[in-house]
């Protein structure tokens, strides 16, 4: 029996009797708490029915053409065999459990932020923690980001290990001086005398219907600065392992979550559920092997890349005149330090690179990856220019149709892949 790992593994998973189905997941717009309802799944049949699959493919194509699926499409796994070792945990609970375990493990760890205590967290990420640990360890702050971020950094100076939550990373702009000038630079300015063991965390990037001031992605902004570690998990395993690693790290870590991922469940193995499970910061993960083209992404867009890969793989099987295109999908996990070696290794295999991110294109994460690939050994292996798929270069609009067209969709990824591969 195969051990359970991240759901979107290499195609061999299918041999184990697993089938993939695309499920449309409409979001409930306007709910700040982040409640999402999962749409009804289309009825499944066994994989042996090609007609059934073909019609599903057609419906997927319909979706993709109309752009309705842009909000969220989740591949749900079904197993013909069950494994007792795996447990389904959504990203929110993974973060919650990670914090709970680290709070328990080290008395110096504490959480502060708006609504983290008695409200159970604006997005319920800190649910139950105040009840368990009390006022001393879980602190509700007034709406004064610059002040409480500074207080958090000062507490780190004096030997505590704060987790400073920003309700969203948009509000971190109020406090960005404390993150950069007080946290990131201090170890260097003091020539190693003053470490700053702090984690800043919160949801980053676009949500659904929250408009321009609440939808910015800060990966490039914080990723720009030496002295910070910047982490951007995608699934529950990432969230859990990276948050534990961040809390245990003696350096300032910017932890970029994603609100739309909070409610998404993933299978976590026993190994991942162990209380000392940590993921290394600065190491990317190849989520899917492929030979034709490398997709590099972070956070929610990793899911879209995997969806695109599945779609293209199916297309290849369906249409005999088309080549079976296999996509390698690299999940960055960490923005800074960037694991350029993993990307290079993949690009040297595939010869093609597409970066996918939710943030704006200019001076973004994708731009950095492309520049580094150009400057490194992988350039000689490129058969086409490396390109980026990004959010549209505009402030986020409100109307659903506009919002849907402001972020990269699966069809954009597929379109780009085909362009780069000259298909």
């Amino acid at each position, binding site marked *: 029996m195969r051990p359970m790992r991240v759901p979107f593994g290499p195609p061999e998973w299918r041999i184990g009797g697993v089938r993939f189905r695309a499920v449309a997941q409409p979001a409930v717009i306007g709910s700040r708490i982040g409640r999402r309802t999962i749409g009804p799944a289309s009825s499944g049949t066994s994989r042996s029915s090609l007609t059934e699959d073909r019609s599903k493919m057609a419906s997927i194509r319909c979706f993709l053409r109309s752009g309705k699926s842009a909000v969220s499409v989740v591949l749900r796994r079904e197993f013909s065999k069950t494994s007792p070792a795996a447990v389904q945990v959504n990203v929110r609970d993974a973060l919650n459990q990670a914090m709970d375990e680290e709070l328990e493990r080290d008395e110096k760890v504490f959480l502060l932020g708006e609504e983290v205590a008695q409200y159970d967290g604006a997005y319920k990420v800190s649910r139950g923690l105040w009840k368990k640990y009390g006022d001393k360890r879980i602190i509700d702050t007034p709406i004064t980001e610059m*002040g*409480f*971020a500074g207080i958090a950094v000062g507490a780190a100076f004096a*030997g505590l290990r704060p987790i400073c939550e920003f309700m969203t990373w948009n509000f971190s702009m109020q406090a960005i001086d404390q993150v950069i000038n007080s946290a990131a630079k201090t170890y*260097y*300015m*003091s*020539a*190693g*005398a003053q470490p700053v063991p702090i984690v800043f965390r919160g949801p980053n990037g676009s949500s659904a219907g929250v408009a321009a001031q609440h939808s910015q992605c800060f990966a490039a902004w914080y990723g720009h600065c030496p002295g910070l570690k910047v982490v951007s998990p995608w699934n529950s395993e990432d969230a859990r392992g990276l948050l534990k690693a961040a809390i245990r790290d003696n350096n300032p870590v910017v932890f970029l979550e994603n609100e739309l991922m909070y409610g998404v469940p993933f299978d976590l193995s026993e190994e991942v559920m162990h209380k000392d499970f940590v993921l290394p910061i600065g190491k990317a993960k190849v989520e899917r092997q492929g030979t034709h083209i490398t997709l590099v992404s972070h956070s929610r867009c990793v899911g879209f890349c995997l969806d695109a890969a599945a779609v293209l793989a199916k297309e290849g099987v369906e249409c005999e005149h088309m080549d079976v295109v296999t996509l390698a999908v690299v999940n960055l996990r960490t923005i800074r330090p960037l694991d350029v070696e993993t990307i290079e290794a993949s690009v040297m295999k595939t010869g093609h690179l597409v970066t996918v991110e939710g943030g704006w294109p200019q001076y973004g994460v994708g731009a950095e990856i492309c520049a580094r690939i150009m400057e490194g050994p992988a350039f000689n292996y490129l058969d086409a220019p490396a390109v980026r798929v990004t959010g549209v270069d505009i402030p986020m609009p409100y109307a659903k149709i506009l919002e849907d067209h402001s972020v990269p969709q699966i069809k954009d990824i597929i379109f780009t892949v085909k362009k780069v591969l000259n298909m």
Partner: protein
Amino acid sequence: MPSRFNLIEEDRQQKGGEKRSETAGRWQHDSMQKMLTIISNVLRGSASRHGAQVVSEAASMVASSRSYADFTPEATFDIKKVDLHRLEEGPPLTATLTREEGLKYYRTMQTIRRMELKADQLYKQKIIRGFCHLYDGQEACAVGIEGGITLSDHLITAYRAHGYTLTRGGTVREIMAELTGRRGGIAKGKGGSMHMYTKNFYGGNGIVGAQVPLGAGVALACKYLGNDQLCVSLYGDGAANQGQIFETYNMSSLWKLPIIFICENNQYGMGTSVERSSASTEYYKRGDYIPGLRVDGMDVLCVREATKFAADHCRSGKGPILMELQTYRYHGHSMSDPGVSYRTREEIQEVRSKSDPISMLKDRMLSNNMASIEELKEIDIAVRKEIEDAAQFATTDPEPPLDDLCSHIFANDQPFEVRGATPWTKLTSTS
């Protein structure tokens, strides 16, 4: 500006002790020979001493023939009353100074003074570069505050930090070498004037006002760890209008953090006088619901007593307290500011002659026979030597090695590669 200058005779009458009248009497009965000795001694002395000092020095010279056992071990001085905000009682109106304390404060203030003047010199010789914000004139604040807390308490200030780096345990050598950017500097040359750190001293912060929430965070840690320590968080009259300071007032009060907010009001925020920057210049009241004190920041004993009072307030769990120290800086805002475009030379001169913190302490000690003029002179010479040695070190110590360029990015990490100025320049960062 409080005018502190009294004619030496009034001084003698006010701060009297027994020995006072004896000395006066002896002076009256001196022989011509003794007078000549005294006059020649005085003329040999430093030209920077003002008239009153000459007289008191002469008087002390007569008394100097006595041994150290004859010095007053301890004296009590009247200190200026403190203005109170939301406080029923304030610090005491008298302060007791022992001889040891007096000599210690004198030496430390003199060290700060000479160190800053040396830094001025080195800056003009272009051996120090960049920002250099000098503290001369404000010595009583740093020394007085330290007199009211212990080294296990915490302190954080803004960029005018050389004096505090010293009182918090740094050496003149390390400080000067940091100013000249050498490897022997307190931050190995990586920080510079504004980024000096010692144990329980968190700099040295360049962003105006940012240090105040940081100080509250340190105070939070003190409360969290239950160690009965407190944090002194300093800022200037210019910073006092920063929003994040008010955010900090709020949270410190809500959570009853053991923090002493101290506003060093030296009347000017860079080139802007307090009247031009602040709708309310009563900085000790700006904490609103936080009790406040307005203290004469040129009198080291005033500052010390107020700090002791504030520390008691914090340690008793009552939460934050705010002190405004009225002080003055002789130099401009920084070395690139001559400091005379927004204030007159006469004003600076007046403060120097009437309210200088070192002179004030010296006068007190001499007129109460707590030290001899020679003793203080010896201290001056020793300080001067210390500064010279430090300056020598600071100018001859080599600059940091290039290997150090990328180190200290992350703590407790494996060495990693850092991109240099070109894609082929691969540098290494070590913790």
